[in-house]
């Protein structure tokens, strides 16, 4: 029975991943990514990793999706495909198909599949993974730590250094986001230093009228040139 569930979940995962590739609207792609996270959480439950499933359901499907949607609110959710833009700009350029990426992916995937042929059998207790430190954790943690959940005792005690490093990484990521998103609210402080206050004002107007409206206009070329000019003007001053 468990194997059937496994098969079904893996198939659904593959279908969802393909949907993320095919969908052109970013909003829909983000939603599919959320579904993908939930499905992988189900798969983790089937594979006895309940803690991981819990985390994946809370983080991957919850926080990650919310952050993606917050980003989409800022950057817009429409993808202009290269194909569309090229035909809009010039009719001479031949249609571009992603043959080369497909080739690279197929070759890499083929090599990886060849590699899996030497993998130890799935779920066998004699695999090398299960015979190194894991038996010690499972047998000794009961009276060494006294906490029933082995994952917690390994996470917090045996591998406390690891977890401390990860916590620091999470903290550093927050610092990175703060640095990236807090320094300017619509104003470029770098530009302020280099070009003085009034030029920065000019640049701001340039950004707005170059991209505020012409993002939707059929010919993006004009807008880009305009912006280029403004930038140069700012640079000279």
């Amino acid at each position, binding site marked *: 029975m468990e194997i059937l569930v496994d098969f079904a979940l893996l198939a659904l995962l593959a279908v969802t991943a393909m949907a993320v590739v095919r969908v052109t609207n970013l909003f829909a792609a983000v939603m599919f990514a959320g579904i993908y996270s939930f499905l992988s959480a189900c798969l983790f439950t089937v594979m006895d990793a*309940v*803690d991981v*499933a*819990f*985390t994946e359901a*809370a*983080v991957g499907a*919850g*926080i990650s999706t*919310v*952050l993606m949607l*917050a*980003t989409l609110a*800022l950057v817009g959710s429409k993808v202009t495909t290269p194909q569309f833009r090229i035909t809009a700009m010039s009719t001479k350029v031949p249609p571009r198909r992603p043959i080369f990426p497909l080739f690279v992916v197929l070759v890499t995937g083929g090599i990886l599949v060849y590699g899996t042929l030497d993998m130890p059998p799935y779920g066998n207790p004699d695999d090398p993974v299960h015979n190194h430190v894991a038996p010690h954790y499972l047998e000794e943690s009961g*009276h*060494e*730590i*006294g*906490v*029933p*959940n082995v*994952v*917690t*005792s390994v*996470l*917090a*005690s045996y591998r*406390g*250094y690891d*977890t*401390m490093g990860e*916590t*620091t990484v*999470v*903290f550093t*990521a*927050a610092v990175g*986001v*703060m640095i990236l*998103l*807090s320094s300017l*609210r*619509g104003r470029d402080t770098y530009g302020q230093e280099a070009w003085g206050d009034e030029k920065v004002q000019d640049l701001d107007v340039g950004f707005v009228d170059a991209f505020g409206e012409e993002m939707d206009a059929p010919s993006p070329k004009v807008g880009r040139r305009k912006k280029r000019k403004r930038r140069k003007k700012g640079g000279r001053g």
Partner: protein
Amino acid sequence: MSDQVILRVATKIIVPTILLYALYVQFHGDFGPGGGFQAGVIFAAGIILYSLVFGLRRTQKVLPSWVARLAASTGVLIYAGTGVVALLKGGKFLDYSVLAHDPEHGQHLGILFVEIGVMITVLGVMITIFYFFAARGREDL
């Protein structure tokens, strides 16, 4: 979104439940699935739900941005501080056995503090990141 009566009432009931559940996950982590990482994320999800319905300004009255930032750094401090306390008590860094008279009791204590540190860091980080994304491009906040 202030006219959405049903959403507001439902959120007022759901958010405390979520926060309580986060604490349950935190302190039940020794006996079942759960722990600091999950608890922090669930707590942050509750706060994010509140701010999605009631707006960022009201949320930041409840939990100001500096509190979230302080939490993010305090958690790491608690974690590393547990290790330093173990060091001062004559053990190795992050060796909890020396924290109490009984090694097993010491391990319990150490895991409790470490998990609390992880939870506080994760919730602070997630809320901070959400605040910065949500406040971006809005001059009024």
